[in-house]
């Protein structure tokens, strides 16, 4: 029974991926990609990765989907004919390359070692020292904290990259266009009703992350999505990126993370090590500091490069 379900989900996902690639209409491809991203969350649930399912639904399907569909809408009127299509022989060669890569990967999947290598016993043996109950949170903020630190810094770098695409005249201005919607329309209605619920859900997902599936990335995505909804409905506007408070909130989380890491070098003998007995409070401090920074970074990544002067 469950095997039938798995097979049909796999076939459906594959069909959606092919549709996304093959359809002629750009907008249809964007819609297909969103459905694809949401179906992937089912795969993650079946692979027993609930934390990954949450982030896939929120970021992979949600934020990426909105980003792609918004830009597809803006590029809709561009002449697609300007693009040069590849000839039949080149397409056949590309199909052969793609087929060989897929076949090699499939062979690797069938040849995976049995029993599989795993780090789960080491995590189980050491999780008590961190004080958190969710093994993934323990990996993210204790065992592999350096990855998480570099990740939040990569997000800031990506944001700097997006901002640097601003035309000279509007540097420091407000990102994206000013959205307007019918104040009595369904979008504005949702933008008034959903955020109070969404903000509570986001903070809850963040709060339970220490011991259950969830965490700061998933929670921050929820908060960013709620702001995005209000902005698209014209109820609020993006702040000018030259604001001092905005810059401070952006870097506060990573700075606290680095400061705690450096303090660990003094008190516990290694960068990002926690002194015995203080692991849980320090992990919570990092999570609390990262949450607003991440929410703002994700929201501003969605908003795009500055397009309007900051001062009207």
């Amino acid at each position, binding site marked *: 029974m469950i095997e039938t379900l798995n097979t049909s989900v796999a076939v459906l996902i594959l069909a959606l991926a092919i549709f996304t690639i093959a359809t002629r209409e750009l907008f249809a491809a964007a819609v297909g990609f969103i459905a694809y991203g949401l179906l992937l969350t089912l795969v993650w649930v079946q692979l027993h990765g609930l934390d990954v399912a949450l982030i896939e639904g929120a970021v992979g399907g949600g934020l990426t989907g909105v980003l792609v569909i918004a830009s597809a809408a803006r590029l809709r009127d561009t002449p697609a004919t300007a693009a040069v299509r590849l000839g039949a022989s080149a397409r056949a060669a590309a199909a052969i390359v793609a087929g060989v890569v897929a076949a090699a990967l499939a062979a690797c999947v069938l040849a995976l070692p049995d029993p599989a290598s795993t780090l789960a016993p080491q995590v189980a043996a050491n999780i008590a020292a961190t004080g958190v109950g969710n093994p993934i949170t323990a990996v993210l903020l204790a065992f592999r904290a350096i990855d998480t630190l570099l990740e939040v810094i990569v997000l800031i770098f990506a944001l700097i990259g997006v901002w640097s695409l601003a035309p000279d005249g509007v540097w420091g201005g407000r990102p994206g266009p000013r959205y307007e919607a019918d104040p009595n329309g369904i979008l504005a209605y949702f933008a008034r009703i959903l955020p109070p619920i969404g903000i509570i859900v986001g903070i809850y997902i963040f709060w339970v992350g220490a011991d259950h599936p969830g965490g700061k990335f998933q929670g921050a995505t929820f908060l960013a999505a709620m702001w995005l909804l209000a902005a698209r409905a014209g109820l609020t506007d993006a702040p000018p990126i030259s604001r001092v408070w905005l810059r401070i909130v952006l870097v506060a989380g990573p700075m606290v993370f680095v400061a705690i890491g450096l303090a660990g070098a003094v008190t516990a003998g290694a960068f990002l090590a926690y002194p015995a007995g203080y692991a849980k409070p320090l992990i919570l401090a990092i999570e609390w500091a990262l949450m607003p920074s991440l929410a703002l970074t994700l929201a501003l990544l969605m908003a795009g*490069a500055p397009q309007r002067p900051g001062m009207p």
Partner: protein
Amino acid sequence: MSATTIFGLCAAALVGVGLFGLIVDPQPLRKILAFNVIGSGVFVLFGAVARRGAAEGMGGDPVPQALLITGIVVAFSATALAVALLLRLFNVTGSVTLSSDAPHEERLDGGNAWRRRP
């Protein structure tokens, strides 16, 4: 067939489909989509490997699962940067093509003037 094998094979096929789209499709936004399909295929493959490492009452090996969360967020930031580059290209040249010899209107100010798009 176990879930890990089914989704592992599905992931291998997704990488192939995405790679084909990335090479063949001339439109930049379609290339970004195809690249994301490749990325999610790699993630699912890694997720199947993580599931096989289930032990000690955990549903999967938590180390690859945590790396997956990191990977998905980083993939999003790369997509956001790529889309921003694409929109900037559109604002400067008025068209979106990666072909270097395609005709396009060159704006004298290099796209620096602020203008409201209709």
